[in-house]
């Protein structure tokens, strides 16, 4: 599974992008469960966020959904922070 996160906006307006390919990873099933929950709670179009809030684009195996701070589910928040931290 290929999990991509793109973050735009924020006070600084600086974009960040990272992705994780779970194939061959020992924790792949954990990633899959997290990604599926995060995507299920996403929106099909970008929500207009709050001033200076981050906007996120989550793409999992080609399917893209959107979400924005501060209204993220716990799974979305966890997935985003893991991908931006551990992803390339």
């Amino acid at each position, binding site marked *: 599974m290929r999990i991509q996160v793109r973050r735009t906006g924020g*006070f*600084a*307006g600086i*974009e960040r992008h990272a992705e994780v390919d779970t194939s061959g990873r020992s924790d792949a099933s954990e990633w899959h469960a997290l990604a599926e929950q995060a995507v299920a709670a996403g929106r099909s179009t970008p929500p*207009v966020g*709050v*001033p200076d809030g981050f*906007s996120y684009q989550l793409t999992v195996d080609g399917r893209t959904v959107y979400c924005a701070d*501060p209204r993220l589910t716990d799974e979305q928040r966890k997935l985003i922070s893991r991908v931006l931290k551990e992803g390339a």
Partner: protein
Amino acid sequence: MTTHGGFEPVFCTIVPPHVLDRLAQAEDPALARPARRTLQRDAFERTQRRLTTVIGATAAAAVADGRPQRTVHDARHGTDLPGHKVRGEGDKPGKDATVNRAYAGLGATFELFLQAYRRDSIDGNGLPLNATVHYDRDYNNAFWNGEQMVFGDGDGEIFLDFTIPIDVIGHELAHGVTQYTANLTYFGQPGALNESLSDVFGALIKQYTLGQTAAEADWLIGAGLLAPRVTGTALRSMKEPGTAYDDDVLGKDPQPATMDDFVRTGRDNGGVHINSGIPNHAFHLAATALGGHAWERAGQVWYDVLTGGELRQDAMFTDFATLTVKAARERFGDGEELDAVSKGWEQVGVRTL
């Protein structure tokens, strides 16, 4: 929701919003314009819903006595808002420097609006000021959620604590002022104006606090926020947009200074933090041409436009610029203020009508 008399949906409910997003970026204005209008309307309605909630929730708590009513909360690295109350109005400073900075920044912002513009808090009616610090972990941002300010600690690698620059605190509160007044749609040009107004008043709060003239001010937004390893001085420069940073990790400051370099993008709500460089620079030019304390004349003109009731929610740069020229004439007559404001816009390539 009540109806919006006279408004005719352009593509609403027929064309999916992601298509609108693509269309809004189209080269052909015939395609792009209606799509943008629809997206802006959508954004406006969301803001309206939020605004209604906020006004409804806070009207009872308003105390219009010309004194701030500050409360700082600590999210303790979680994301529940507002978090635990750690300092109320009149409480002595505690050991947490972040809490103390947020409290002081709220006070400084309140002071500028009251002393310079006779505005009692962000809603003009004594609205209590709330801030939450230590939001999430390593959180590289600060934002206004429609009701309060929220500050992250930064990750220490790229960003430090977001309460460090007082102009960042002022910037977030100014979003509150905009929400209660012109309520500019947070998308495209009106969104960039919304961002620019927050930078303008954020910068003015810093200058007011330091007692600086326009010539003495650094005109930087977020100075002191970048971690030592980052190559840059701040996040934005109103004096020289596009020069605040140039770093391996962060990239280069993307802000244009003039309309020639206006950036068309769907990201960042249509480039609200990018194209704000243009009106930011116009303000800097007007303020430095006038000299002295920028909040007294240039700031007064911008404040008059923001709160005057004529600035539409979907205002474009030209609409805003035209109103500043009108406001300069109304407040100061046919003098150097009018000249400085007109020339500021002319230099950044924004037409005034």
